[in-house]
């Protein structure tokens, strides 16, 4: 047994676990934080993704002892931290995933959303390609991913205050010309924002 002092979701937690335990094991089997999922336990699926100092990390491949002294964010902490930072309600990523139907069984979602949050921390207006890249370590067997990409794009558009490009699932209800126009405007707003942000600091520190 090794005593552990971990900062999880803003709280300092003291516990003890065998020295070889991973952060995922400590979260799930010591601290009762079961939001981080155990999909493979060997770094293949991304279901256990957490943020360590704002960066995505696979908890199943991280020794708990090495996480001491770092700020760990799990899915349970996403909304409280957003509120503590002055936000209102869930993290915009969570809200967007909910509204875009970017989940089915939901087992992949905690890891997926934390990967998305980490991306937006370092790049507040990513392209579709950058979103795919950032989420490529998170497997989902249910959704087909498209609504997940759209959810991240919705979170981005809303943070910039522009109307998002129409989601694929909405197109049937829109006139093609309208949809094209909205997509064009969203793209222009994003391009402008990217220009502004070029080399600048991330939207969230």
């Amino acid at each position: 047994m090794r005593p552990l002092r971990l900062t999880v979701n803003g709280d300092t937690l003291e516990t003890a676990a065998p020295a070889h335990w991973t952060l995922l094991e400590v979260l799930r089997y010591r601290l009762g934080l079961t939001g981080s999922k155990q999909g493979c336990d060997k770094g293949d699926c991304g279901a256990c993704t957490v943020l360590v100092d704002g960066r995505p990390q696979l908890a199943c491949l991280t020794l708990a002892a090495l996480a001491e002294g770092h700020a760990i964010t799990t899915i349970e902490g996403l909304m409280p931290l957003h509120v503590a930072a002055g936000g209102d309600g869930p993290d915009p990523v969570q809200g967007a995933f909910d509204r875009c139907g970017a989940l089915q069984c939901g087992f992949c979602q905690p890891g997926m959303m934390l990967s998305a949050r980490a991306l937006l921390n370092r790049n507040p207006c990513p392209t579709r390609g950058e979103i795919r890249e950032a989420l490529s370590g998170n497997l989902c067997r249910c959704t087909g991913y498209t609504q997940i990409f759209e959810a991240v794009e919705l979170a981005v558009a809303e943070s910039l205050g522009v109307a998002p490009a129409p989601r694929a699932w909405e197109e049937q209800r829109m006139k093609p010309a309208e949809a094209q126009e909205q997509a064009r405007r969203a793209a222009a707003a994003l391009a402008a924002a990217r220009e502004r942000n070029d080399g600048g600091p991330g939207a969230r520190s």
Partner: protein
Amino acid sequence: MKLEPRAVPLQDAPPKRKVKTTQVVNGIETEVEIEVEDVPAGQWPPRASLRVLNHDIPRVDGPVKVSGAARYTHDVRVPGMVWARLLLSPLPRARVAALDLEAARAVPGVVHVLVVEREETGWLGQPVAVVAAETLEAAGDGLRALAARFEPLPWVVDHAAAVREGAPAVGRGANVGRPETDGDEARARAALSASATRVRATYTVPVQHHASLETHGVVVDYRGGEDAVVYCSTQYAQGFAAEAAKELGLKAGNVRGVVEHMGGGFGSKFGLDAQGLYACRIAKELKRPVHLMLDRRAEFLMSGNRSGTSMTIEAGCDAQGSLTGLVAEAWKHGGLGRGSLSGLPYCYKAGAHFRDVRSVRMHLDASRAMRAPGHPQASFGMESILDELAYAAGLDLVEIRRRNAAHPAWVRQLDRVAREIGWDQHPHRTQPGKPDREECIGIGFGISNWGSGGSSDCEAEVRIEKDGSVVVACAAQDLGTGTRMYMAAIAAEEFGLPVAAVTARLGDSRLPTGVASGGSVTTPSVAPAVKDACTRARGAFAAHLAQVLGRSAEGFRFGPDGVRHDGMTERLAWSKACGTLPAEGLSARGKWQESLQTRGVRCTQAAQVAVDPGTGRVRVLHMVCLQEVGLALNRLAVKSQIQGGMIQALGYALGEGRQLDSALGLQLNASFEEYKIPHALEIPRMTTLIDDDDTRNGVAGVGEPPAIPGASAIANAVHNACGARVRELPITPDKVLLALGKVV
């Protein structure tokens, strides 16, 4: 104010009538005759008048899922729980030579060692022993302390070895099953001989894994006494609760099965399964709760799969492209199971056909239902031979499909899908392209069908509380497809309420009879029962209000603006109206009704790919799907389901497939590292269209059809792009290069 009892009982023994239907049992389609009650047929409102349904509705369990609060079986923790782990047979067939039970029992923390196979194992991954301990870690130490030794016995894990003379027997009986035949062989062969063009080829599909993100497993909460609660990652809450009761030796009514949320099943999670039975046995023995989840390797080895197939098909057509004859000879590879393969010709009609299908058994775990069992295999054979025939006869690939499709819905779908994928501008419509550039673009098509249809046993209950809240309940489970959401939405539509005013309860064996969620039966089972319960509750509420207000029951209307009566000018707010109910509120039970569902869902897909003939790499650029869905309850969720199916097919086409080493008796890819399911970088542009020309006003299950034709369409597109005909899935770069003659 005098109030009558509120519960509206089901009518006593209403007259019954028989109907023929396809029923899906544990995900497998079967033709049956069922009895249905001859009650006045319920109807959904006309589509144009729907306020909630047939729109994009965010799911009611979205918030609990995105916040990480949703509890899956893996996450269940109960006081006094022990953790169990399995020891699996590392070989397809072996003698269990040594198991040191004493050493395992001596490991600190180990509380129980259960041996489930002492003599001989008969399939790769077969459970041999279970160790339960105070911690997961100690259970693992216990497994190692067993120091199990296995002596190999002769096995067969591939087709050639299994059919060889003198091959080691797989269980009792011959390794090759009896032929299942269909059609008239003489007529079919005569038609082939007389055909203007004929082709013959052999197609092979591998074993595909379900690869649900949450593995199989249970938590059995039994602490002695008469009652138990069992949590299970399953597609059938009531089924496994009954099995657990039997194993625990308890009365069926005393065991509650709970599936709050589950992380995917796709047909692999119906019963309690071996691990569930063992967990019950240990819980019974120890009188302590047991947590037993499979790890990822066990999930690959012992939790079922889609059977592989090898099929030789010969088909012929006349000068116009009409199929005159088709003869198919096929072998199913379902391990210890029989495997499944849908009928050939699949979704097309041929003048005459004959097929001979046999299963070849091996020392591997039995295949299970997997999303449209048997269909993707048959589709790959059928769509491939159709393309080969079209090219041989110089016909347009869409035209040959339009001409031979077995239902007119596919003709209209093919036209639309061809338009969306850009078929008219595509240069290779009757001949494949050549491997003469870095990026060769090709297009392929496929069609599919699924019977769907609900279970006539399904029931639901609706309660309207005095405070105006509404609860809808059914024991069926939500696999993530949105069952909770549409249960709430149906009630919201019926009573003119916002969806948020309704609570949906499910995934609990104590609720009204649900259904096993496999084969797209959940929606056509649950939605009609909920709708029927709502209709009855509305009738009972109207009768109650009639009494209170001294009006005729027929005149009441429930809408977003409250409760109105034809003979009254003023409106009654919903909450006021509910306030007149007695303390216990009002409840009504409803039953499945045939008139509220529909059967037979057809789907058409196209895929556009880019093939690099230098490397053999295939990238899917665009997939189009147009699918019938009957009445869509939630368009957003339907599209998500369709896309999920399309991407599973993309995996089947390009990456998935169990790899075994026959000599060593190992699975080489029993992990997500080597068994590659599609990830975010491989997702093409997806055009997902609901076929609104399907005006049937009944609900249908939508999950199976989209998972079927995509792999066939992609395979055909690869050939169409550059002339590489790969007849064996998955289409990996080496096979493309081989087909192009670039490697030998």
